[in-house]
């Protein structure tokens, strides 16, 4: 039966994320962007939210609440509202743990998950995006070639968050039988991590290029074993992307609304002018549209239904809507929107990233 109300547990979770985003994340967002670094105390504080440990099964040391795309979607939106770079930092280990929970073999789960269920932060990550304008998520140019009982990985990746401190990297590559993912450990021969990348937005997030020059991994490192279908993981990445977009757009919208109610022109707050008010009305409608599309796709994933179409619609819609909303928010502030004293230019730079991000987070 159709229902738009999150469960009480989900509401509680949402509230927790909301206050963390507003009280812990937001106050440090500008400084983090200017310094190209997250606040040093963030990882430890963020770890207490249980973003990573929650979904890990109890038998592997986690809290065992399982994987829920809807729950993740709600969390990601709230965190991204605080600051996208910091949200992505906190969510990064999930790029490794969620695929394992969803698609990993029993041995892979037992070998890797307990490490991420402890009391202090542990980093895992995933390498998906490739540094090419014609990057194709369905046909990666990074290859996985079988060689005896091993696979040999070759190719280049970019936008790999926290690659320099990851205990393991999930590398996506084209295997002869289709798209696949492989668990690669740091220090593997042939694996090299570039200098920290310089991006337009999410500047506080450490991202790296990763080069795989004939990295040899055992067949047992293939996620889910031979023939495992990783398309659902890509769908889950797109839903996360859409939810991040909602958070960023919502942050920009809220700031513009507050500004419009305070800023006076011609004797009234500019919010009382239809030219501004109608812009804000459209922004609100687009934010809700994007959120509902993200929920729809997340729901499909949780139902075990094919979600490629829904995830694609949500992600593509989010790409356009979040950029438009952030751009309109900046316009509401006029010249002030262009100045770094206000956060709106930061939201605009972050929103632009949504189009480029693929599997930078996962639900």
């Amino acid at each position, binding site marked *: *039966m*159709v*229902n*738009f*109300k*999150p*469960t009480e547990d*989900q509401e509680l979770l949402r509230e927790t994320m909301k206050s963390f985003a507003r009280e812990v994340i937001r106050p440090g967002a500008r400084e983090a962007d200017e310094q190209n670094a997250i606040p040093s105390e963030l990882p430890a504080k963020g770890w207490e939210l249980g973003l990573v440990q929650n979904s890990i099964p109890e038998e592997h040391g986690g809290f065992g609440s399982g994987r829920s795309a*809807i729950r993740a979607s709600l969390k990601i939106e709230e965190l991204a509202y605080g600051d996208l770079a910091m949200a992505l930092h906190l969510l990064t280990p999930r790029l490794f743990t969620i695929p394992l929970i969803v698609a990993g073999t029993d041995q892979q789960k037992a070998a890797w998950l307990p490490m991420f269920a402890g009391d202090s932060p542990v980093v895992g990550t995933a390498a998906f995006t490739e540094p090419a*304008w*014609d*990057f*194709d*998520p*369905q046909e990666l140019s990074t290859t996985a070639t079988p060689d005896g009982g091993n696979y040999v990985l070759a190719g280049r990746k970019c936008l790999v968050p926290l690659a320099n401190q990851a205990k393991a990297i999930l590398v996506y590559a084209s295997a002869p039988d289709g798209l696949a993912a492989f668990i690669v450990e740091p220090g593997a021969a042939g694996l090299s991590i570039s200098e920290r990348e310089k991006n337009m937005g999410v500047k506080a997030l450490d991202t790296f290029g990763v080069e795989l020059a004939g990295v040899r991994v055992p067949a047992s490192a293939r996620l889910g074993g031979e023939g495992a279908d990783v*398309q659902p993981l*890509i769908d889950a990445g797109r839903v996360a992307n859409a939810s991040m977009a909602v958070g960023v757009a919502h942050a920009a919208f809220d700031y513009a*609304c507050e500004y*419009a*109610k305070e800023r006076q022109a011609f004797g009234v707050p500019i*919010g*009382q002018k*239809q030219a501004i*008010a*109608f812009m*804000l*009305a*459209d922004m*609100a*409608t687009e934010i*809700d*549209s*994007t959120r*509902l*599309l993200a*929920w*729809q796709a997340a*729901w*499909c994933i949780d*139902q075990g239904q094919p979600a*490629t*179409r*829904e995830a*694609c*619609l*949500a992600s*593509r*819609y989010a790409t*356009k809507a979040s950029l438009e909303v952030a751009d309109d928010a900046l316009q509401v502030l006029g010249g002030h929107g262009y100045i770094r004293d206000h956060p709106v230019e930061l939201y605009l730079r972050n929103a632009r990233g949504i189009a480029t991000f693929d599997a930078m987070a996962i639900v």
Partner: protein
Amino acid sequence: MIDFELSKSCKSIRDMTHQAAEHMMRPISRETDENEHDKPWEFINAMWEVSRGTTMVGGTDADDKADAKAAGPKEPSERILRMCVTVEELCWGDVGLYLSIPNSGLGGAAVGAAGTPEQRRRFLARFSEGKPKWGAMAITEPSCGSDSAAIQTTAVRDGDQWVLNGTKIFCTSGLMAAEKSEGFVVVWATLDRSAGRAAIRAFVVDAGTPGMFVTKVEDKLGIRASDTATLVFEDCRVPLDNLLGSAEVKKTGKGFKGAMATFDATRPIVAASGVGVARAALEFVKDTMKERGIEIRYGAPLHKLTALERDVIDLEGEVDAARLLVWRAAWMLDNGIHNNLEASMCKAKAGLVVTHVTQKAVEILGPLGYSRELLAEKWMRDAKITDIYEGTQQINQLIIARRILGYSSEELR
């Protein structure tokens, strides 16, 4: 718990309605568009037989109670959502024909929202018996549309009657409700022009009441199967208890607010009708592409998608978004949650989406799209009304803006 699965009863009525849309509406879609003022009586009579007294196309008080009984005390109602789902199907068939289906319509919605239980029984019972009947709502006047507080039509008490004088335009099904059936028209009039919106009330005028005249039936861009009438009231007398709600004029303007609350229920339904038309156009485009072996590659990167695929993916996102906004507004109302903001959002969005999607469909289909041999051009003409009636795009933007900014109608005019 967040859930996008329709209930079994919703699905089954949707599937039934789809059959009607496909087999009863589509085949006569073109001819009813070409012959604007001829009523498709065969269709009307058939629809009356299958739908009268049900919530398939319009709700009645009796249905509410049956619903509540069937659902049990703990199950939430699904009445508005079910209507949205069925209306989407019917309008996938033909929106003009949907509007011409005999039922209590917007007039019934006003009686349902602002009337007493006695009034609901008195005025709505007729829609489940006898011959086909229509209910209509008359708000718009030659000199006022969205600004309904500026209504000039007057209602003056004379003994045990109200005397109505004024002119109403753009009254959907006005001809059928006022003259061609034993239906009624809900007429909005002011008890005191100097008191503004606080004095606006709704009056039920039964078909055939002396003093009510249909003076014009409009020629329109689209939705031609439905009549849009001008009604003139000249010393038109109705019983005192045909006034919906209370006659007392208070400064709070509660009567007007009550009447405006009708829109919280009708806007999601009108928005759903837009979603139906948009879906019809988009499905036709996709089916046409499929005939040439073109399937949409949803996961593919931008540089590999054709411009056509990109268009279709974007349009599909728009249609899904509009539908989800409609469902949310309907779900809220069904669950007793105030949905004024969300009702306006879904209406504003659906109006834009259906206009855009149908225009793109005509563009994509080229000469096929522009030809009156096919229905795409008709859908484009039919679509535009969704962005106008039941509150224009701009009026809904205004309502949304007031809600999100916390402004009164005085602060944000």
